[in-house]
């Protein structure tokens, strides 16, 4: 999984929306956030685990490519 040379603002926003929609990302403040564990990174890792991608917890080229594939609108992680 090749790191993205530069994550554009659009890609970052696209990825956040994807995680909100399909992996129940919420942007709540909490102890984990204060300890420096970003909810986005945590959800990225969950998404990477689900799809069998390399688990980096960061937005890499393969993760972004997976997010851009046509797909079903039902969340992968159920509330």
């Amino acid at each position: 999984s090749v790191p993205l040379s530069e994550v554009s603002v659009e890609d970052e926003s696209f990825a956040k929306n994807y995680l909100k929609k399909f992996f129940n990302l919420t942007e709540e403040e909490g102890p984990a956030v204060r300890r420096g564990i970003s909810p986005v990174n945590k959800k990225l890792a969950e998404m990477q685990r689900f799809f069998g991608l390399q688990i980096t917890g960061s937005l890499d080229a393969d993760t972004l490519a997976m997010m851009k594939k046509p797909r079903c609108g039902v969340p992968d992680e159920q509330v």
Partner: protein
Amino acid sequence: ARFSIYGRKWQKRSLTYRIENYTPDMSVAEVDASIGKALQVWAKVTPLRFTRIYSGIADIMISFVRREHGDFNSFDGPGNTLAHAFAPGDGLGGDAHFDDDESFTFRSSRGVVLFIVAAHEFGHSLGLGHSNVPGALMYPTYSYRNPDTFVLPQDDVRGIQYLYGPNSRKDPSVDDPKPPTTPDACDSNMVLDAVTTHRGEIIFFKDSFLWRSFPQSQTPQQSLIRSLWPSAPVDIDAAYESRQLDTVFLFKGRKVWAFTGNQPVRGYPKTLTAFGLPKGVRKIDAALHDVNSGKTLFFVGNNYFSYDESRKTMEQGYPRLVNQAFAGLTRRVTAAFQHKGYTYIYSGPYVYEYDLGTGTRHRELRNSYFLRC
């Protein structure tokens, strides 16, 4: 099984469906046939039965809609989200909505096959969540599959039968096709169809699947061949990468497909004769591109041919016996590739490491050496 469930299911076995409107992309007959066939995918393996109604509220209400459509779950225009459906229940429960900004098709790979999307969505309508098995129908991303030859994969069969049990009304004299399973990298007896390099990765092919192995990663990624190359064949015979052309060639029967990155190369598929192979060759067993010589070897039974990539001609004096170039190799070659200067020849679940310069064999390995479990 790696399916998931919503924790809700229909308490009755006889369900109704209603098609509320149609997409302009397809004829009414094609939509009706796609929807009916998609429901039958699930009816075949469960006690569930589906009846179409033309007015009133059905258990599964089916509609083609765009953008915001009244369920607080907007569609997003062309691409990305194709459809969604709701778990069993009252009101929206069971309903399936298709994004009419997509180009739906009856069976073409240019567009989104409505039957495949509908069959997936009806899985949700019946209580299944997403599966993380790449070949499963309930996998979240769309890949083209031929509707005429579609058989519900094993993971989905197990999921739906976990909820509703098997189809007890099935005629035992009718032999249904076996549900396809997803190949497992941990299967020590697995025989790969082909192996090739691709822009620094190694790609392993088996049935309709591939694994991509990246230099930076320990774990190969499994996906459907058609999620990487939508127009590619499945169950391929051989593959190789030409670094000069930055192209991967896939072989199946007498045909050859070519891809640069994830784009198909114009003019392909071609026939084996385009590579100078005799007309009598109906298929090849494996292909190996030698980076040093620029030659590509095509393995056919006990023989191999040598193709000169720069001259685009078959070399004189071929075919030759495989064991003339690869000492001790008497069994059929099933796949081949080069990695870090060595040549790896697959024969069944075994991999033999050769130095092509000297023709000597160094090691006998198993599949798991490259395709880690």
